[in-house]
């Protein structure tokens, strides 16, 4: 009846409208959205600017992570039989054939552009609301965040878009890395007085504080030489150039800013893997992080754990991995004689004392944890690098794990899920059929050591996670200082920092909580490896390799490459629609 009433009403009103013969002005009435370019709510504008850090930008494996890690010698995403071909976009990142049309390269460009856009919007919104209570603090933070997005963009793409937010109708310009790096440093140094110390003014490590600024400045000074002389054919970068304020050189600036943090309120975690755990919020090392909560409201990413886990490795009966990314042999073998380093691997101990030995000797573990939203049993894998034959729970076909008679989760030898006859043996060697093509056939999909450094958060499916993603953490600050000391000729101080990291971390109770062992000497190669031990799979490797001159060299699934590939191409689709932008050196359509 309601329908008919409505129909009659409509008929009569339409009749009336028709008889009056009224003309419409054709102004579109939008009834389900708020129309306008931006909001004048600076708090929401700030939330959006920060939120872009997490919109996959620094949390999805295929964006900044994919560009900073997949081309390097420590991480790759090969094609695995029927999986992860995806038109070759992943292997292109490993094989250095991304060209001007790679979807992940353009996705990263767009994500970082959105970060810059949203931050500029936040600045404009603050400018419109000078009486806003957090005006000064937020403006400084927005400028810091803008510098962070811009620096990341310059690092990856050599160019970054900019439009002056303080001038009406300012033109779109493209900042160039070699000149802009100095401006960025000056900009960040200038806002420090207006920033909060971490913890003040309701800030926390998910905000751009004074400490985040110190870390960013250290990072920028460390890479300043590269950004200024990007295509230096012999990677002969001038790391000890005079700093922009003519006070000391770049490395001394790195040492200055890292020391502010090392001498500050942060402390190294004795359990290295706590930095990457579900409950790492407020972690003692974390200076600046992308905050993630697994609340089913704001999306989050579990990629860094999910990607490397095998499909038949099931944290709960309803979860699985993707059997995708693995570490490369070059990186894996740098751990030779260092397998007792607490950062290499850590066994998981269940509450009843059971260790999951992952070697066939553990046949069951207690059913003690459950996934909060489903109640499904939660099996904890070990952390760190996973090598060799894998063991774990298997499905009973009725929606649960196979259990032992006494109600424990049965642990069995695992086989590859897509090829159930192949044991899940994670071999360090990859042995691609074509050494320059990162493609495994179906019977090779087990290959590659996996990295469980990041904890798998099973709640709300495989894709979301409460693990905060550290952008700057104290361990990384130590390796920056060590490298700066080293490049500044202060090798002993560098060795001290390296050993501080080595010996502050302790192993699990199975090994009597033994701390890691110090080393006695340091050269460039050892330093390079030590940096890798501390910072692997944390979106730093590409920068490290370029600084150490290893990026152009041939390694797994790539030949010797040209220096122009040290930066990615501006996506052709952007070139197509943008006046005044030029493609980066070396790339042709």
């Amino acid at each position, binding site marked *: 009846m309601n329908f008919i009433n409505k129909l009659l009403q409509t008929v009569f009103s339409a009749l009336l409208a028709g008889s009056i013969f009224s003309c419409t002005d054709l102004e579109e009435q939008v009834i389900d959205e708020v*129309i306008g370019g931006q909001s004048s709510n600076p708090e929401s504008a700030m939330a959006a600017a920060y939120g872009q850090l997490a919109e996959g930008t620094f949390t999805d494996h295929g964006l900044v992570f994919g560009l900073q890690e997949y081309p390097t010698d420590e991480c790759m995403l090969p094609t695995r*039989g029927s999986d992860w071909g995806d038109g070759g976009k992943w292997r292109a990142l490993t094989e250095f054939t991304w060209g001007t049309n790679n979807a992940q390269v353009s996705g990263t460009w767009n994500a970082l552009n959105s970060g810059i856009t949203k931050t500029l919007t936040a600045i404009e919104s603050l400018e419109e609301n000078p009486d806003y209570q957090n005006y000064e603090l937020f403006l400084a933070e927005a400028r810091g965040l803008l510098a962070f997005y811009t620096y990341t963009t310059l690092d990856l793409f050599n160019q970054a878009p900019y439009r002056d937010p303080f001038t009406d109708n300012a033109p*779109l310009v493209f900042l160039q890395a070699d000149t802009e790096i100095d401006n960025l440093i000056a900009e960040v140094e200038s806002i420090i007085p207006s920033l909060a110390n971490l913890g003040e003014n309701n800030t926390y490590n998910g905000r751009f504080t004074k400490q985040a600024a110190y870390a960013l400045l250290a990072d920028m000074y460390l890479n300043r030489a590269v950004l200024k002389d990007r295509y230096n054919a012999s990677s002969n970068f001038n790391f000890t150039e005079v700093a922009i304020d003519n006070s000391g050189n770049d490395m001394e600036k790195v040492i200055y800013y890292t020391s502010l943090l090392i001498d500050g309120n942060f402390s190294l975690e004795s359990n290295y893997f706590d930095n990457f755990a579900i409950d790492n919020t407020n972690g003692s090392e974390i200076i600046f992080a992308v905050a993630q909560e697994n609340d089913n409201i704001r999306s989050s990413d579990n990629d860094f754990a999910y990607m490397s886990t095998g499909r038949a490795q099931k944290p709960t009966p309803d979860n699985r991995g993707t059997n995708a990314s693995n570490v490369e042999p070059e990186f894996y073998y740098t751990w030779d004689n260092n397998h007792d380093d607490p950062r290499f691997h850590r066994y998981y101990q269940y509450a009843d004392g059971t260790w999951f030995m992952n070697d066939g000797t553990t046949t069951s573990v207690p059913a003690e944890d459950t996934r909060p939203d489903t109640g499904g049993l939660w099996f904890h894998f070990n952390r760190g690098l996973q090598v060799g034959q894998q063991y774990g729970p298997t499905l009973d076909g009725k929606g649960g794990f196979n259990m032992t008679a006494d109600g424990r989760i049965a642990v069995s030898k695992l086989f590859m899920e897509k090829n159930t006859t192949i044991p899940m043996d994670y071999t360090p060697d990859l042995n691609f059929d074509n050494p320059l093509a990162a493609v495994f056939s179906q019977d090779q999909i087990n290959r590659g050591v996996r990295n469980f450094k990041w904890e798998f958060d099973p709640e709300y499916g495989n894709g979301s996670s409460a693990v905060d993603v550290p952008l700057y953490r104290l361990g990384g600050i130590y390796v920056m200082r060590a490298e700066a000391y080293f490049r500044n000729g202060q090798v002993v101080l560098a060795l001290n920092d390296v050993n501080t990291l080595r010996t502050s971390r302790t192993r699990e109770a199975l090994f009597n909580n033994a701390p890691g062992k110090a080393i006695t000497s340091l050269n460039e190669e050892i330093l390079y490896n030590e940096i890798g031990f501390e910072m692997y799979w944390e979106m730093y490797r590409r920068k490290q390799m370029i600084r150490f001159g290893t990026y152009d060299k041939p390694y797994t699934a790539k030949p010797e490459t040209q220096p122009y590939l040290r930066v990615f191409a501006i996506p*052709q689709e952007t070139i197509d*629609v943008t006046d005044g932008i030029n493609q980066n050196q070396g790339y042709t359509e």
Partner: protein
Amino acid sequence: MYSKITQLKAKPILISLSVLLFSKTGMASETLPSVLKAYSHTSYYFQQTITGTVLDNNGTPLPGAAVSEVGTDNGVITDFDGKFTLEVKTGSQIEVSYLGFKSLKVEAEDGVLITLEADAANLDEVVLIGYGKKTKKDLTGSVTQLSAEDFKKGVNVSPDNLIQGKVAGVRVVQSSGEPGAGVDVTIRGIGSIRSGSTPLFVVDGVPLSNENVSAPGANFGLGSSTAKNPLNFLNTSDIASITVLKDASAAAIYGARGSNGVVIITTKQGEKGNASITIDSYLSAANVINKIDVLSASEYRNAITEPSYNHGASTDWQDELFRTAITQNHNFSYSKRTDSGNYYASLSYMDQEGIVETSDFERTTARLNAEESFFDNKRLKLKMNLTASQINENGIPNGANAGSDGQVIMHALMANPTRSVFDENGDYTNFNMNAHYNPLYLLDIVEDKTETLRVLGNIEASLRIIDGLEYKFNLGIDRSSSERNSTIYPNLTDRTPLGAYVQNNLDSQSALVEHYLTYNFDIGKNNFEILGGYSYQEFKFSGTSFSTINISPQGEGVSPEYNPGYSGVQAGVSGYAQKNELQSYFSRVNYAFDNRYLLTASIRADGSTRFGKNNKYGYFPSFALGWNIDRENFLQDIEEISQLKLRASWGETGNQEVQNKITQASYSQSASGGYYLYNDYNLINGIVVNRTANPDLKWEVVTQLDLGLDFSLWENKLYGSLDYYNKTTKDAILNIPSEPLSPTTSVWKNIEGEIVNTGIEFTLGSQLVSTEDFNWSLDINGATLANTVKDLPVSELFSGSVAGPGLSGVAANIYKSDYEAGSFFMLKHLGFDEDGVDIFEDLNNDDVINSDDRQIFEGAIPNFTFGINTSLNYKRWDLSLAFIGQTGGYLVNNTNLALNINNLASDRNVLSEFYDAGANTQNTPQLSTLYLEKSDFIRLNNARIGYNFDTETINWLRGFNLYISAQNLFTITNYSGFDPLINSPRSSGGNQSIGIDYTTYPSSKSFMIGATIKL
């Protein structure tokens, strides 16, 4: 362009229409302008007044026939009883003409009784055009009209299927074989890169929106079924005629909605004579059109090297999934035409099972069409059309939008044939793998029910102000309401294992008001028809969606469809509401000199809320010329030529089928774009900018040139048309990447560049045999099509995302300057080496096969499409055959790609062809020409044999016809998929995909038996 004629003449629709449009010159007036009469009266001395009666060949009076004194402008029309009174010069002749009948000249005598013979000449047929009608011989545009007997026979849910294979240059391709699935109708090629090349459908004068009217489905990772055909609400038995306006001259009167062509649908009216009742029923049985050749259980056991992949059973999963599907359709109608009006009322019920278990489509419709005339000489005519339909559907968990986990059909094709449907406990066998499920289990755990009610009604008033001048008013309402309940119950897969329920609702409504004036008059041999009008249409649609997760198991408690709150956790509520308006002014002049030279000019100004501030109105002109050469003296004596006409037209039409709101920036505050801004970790909503504003956005413009020739030879023994067209799209609207620092990463823009479609269309028909006992007619239509994208301002655009594991983000279609729309972009497969390893062409000779080795291949669009229709009548028997076919196009067989050889290494089934070719099971699936196949085919689309019983001895029975019919009886093709006539919707980035077959629901072939009873 027009279709075949038939020997059945004096179509009821024509008779009724001709009340408005009668004279030998085709002008729409009841009497000649009085001015002219007065003029003619002064010229003669010896006048006499005669009266007479005009009858048809059945002896029924013909009201509205034109009677004129030969050689003068003096004339009248007959009244309701077929009578006329005319003053004529003594000894003169009078000519009587009536549409659909041969004109007759007789001596002017008082009391004359004139019987007109039905005219087989198709060029006198009345053809609908926008806001009017014309006789075929007066047409200047490219228009094809089909009447009920021309329609495609068989099980047709929606009217767009009725024209498949019947109209040159019109392609009707289904998006899936699911009952009621969407249909892509393209007229003269692909005019748009963006999705949305559907023609404008006008039903009884009401232009319909092309928006979906059935609620979208939830995607539980297995895909949701494709958008249903919005025209499903029309009962095909109610349809009297379908007219396709192809060229710009014909379509430009619909302005901004005309660029993809216009399809005018009219529904039935009461037939002349006694009231009649028609009962039409059929029963059909359908089966899958063919099965995909995957390995059987025994072949599979031979093929595998790994014994554990032999699970011991022997199952043909296609047989398990597909069934013989029964459709029943019943149609009941009664109608009558009186002297002053007519009515037609119908009820119909259709219950169609899908060939996949559990899917079905049930429709009930009702219609009432009524027309009545009032006042002097029918000065005022009122006409109402009202139809309502209720559609109840059950869907299955599949769709072209399935993720890498695939959908039900793929799971059935891939399922290991040595697995059993049920395990030893009688439960569905659990494959216990992710992304690989027992297909019948998926059917069991998912329910997807949709109910859609749609009502379309309009009222037309036509008032004669003075002779020749008529005011018309048209008011239409189109309203639909749809609710869809999608449930996946808690299950043993890793796809929503705890179950979920989603309810989607969709309400849409459009209202139309039109006023227009037509004025028809003659000055000497000059005939004018002038049209001017105003149209306003408003569209609204709104929807809501809510979902719950973790629902109670199937069969326990209350199903969420009946009480969503019974169990589970609320998991999201959303909604939207949009409206848009179109305001238009249009005008057209038809001018004819001596019926020889014809000119049409029209213009429409269309204003739309969808376009930017700076471009609210678009102007769409057209011009056309026609030359009836057969009327020239130099051809008058050539008897072989019955009709010969040259046509030329040029015009511009527009395309405004883009989303609402895209010219306006908007933002919202949302949790998804927010952040934990403070150390209390409360989520602060962030500003999400939804669009970058573009106040300059305007319509796409299509400029079309058409040159045509219509002919009829040897007294219509051979007749046909030939048309050349060039259709060029400019200012294409695309969602393209935006400049850096725009609020969003893409923006809707009109881009430079063109899409050019050119082709030649022909229709040839012949009445091969015409005797008292035996008639045989044949007609053939065909069209060529060449499509090129030119001068794109971007390097390329991709679309056609390929489905399957390991294929995320792979695009099969490329739009690039100087290539055909729908070109393919992929590796070239050269064969297999001695180990069965794929060999691809290494385009850049770098010894690595990667995405740099992809090449462009043309193309998805068939270069030639054709239809062959023939009918034979022998005494009381009739036989009709309809063939369709196409050549020169390709399909990406995404179904085969999902059945690649690699499956054999992972406990799944494989296409036999790949195994037989010796392909290595370790080959990784990559999009290559191995999966690119020609889509050439010829198909017996329909065959029908009927018998017309002799009912003359039964007083109450006027007709009884029994028939059997077969649809898709055979298809001759090398294509290895289910059906080469398919276009799966795999668009990406808003750009349409062309030529991808990712079978979500295969086509069927069916046999039917039916009866038509007339009382």
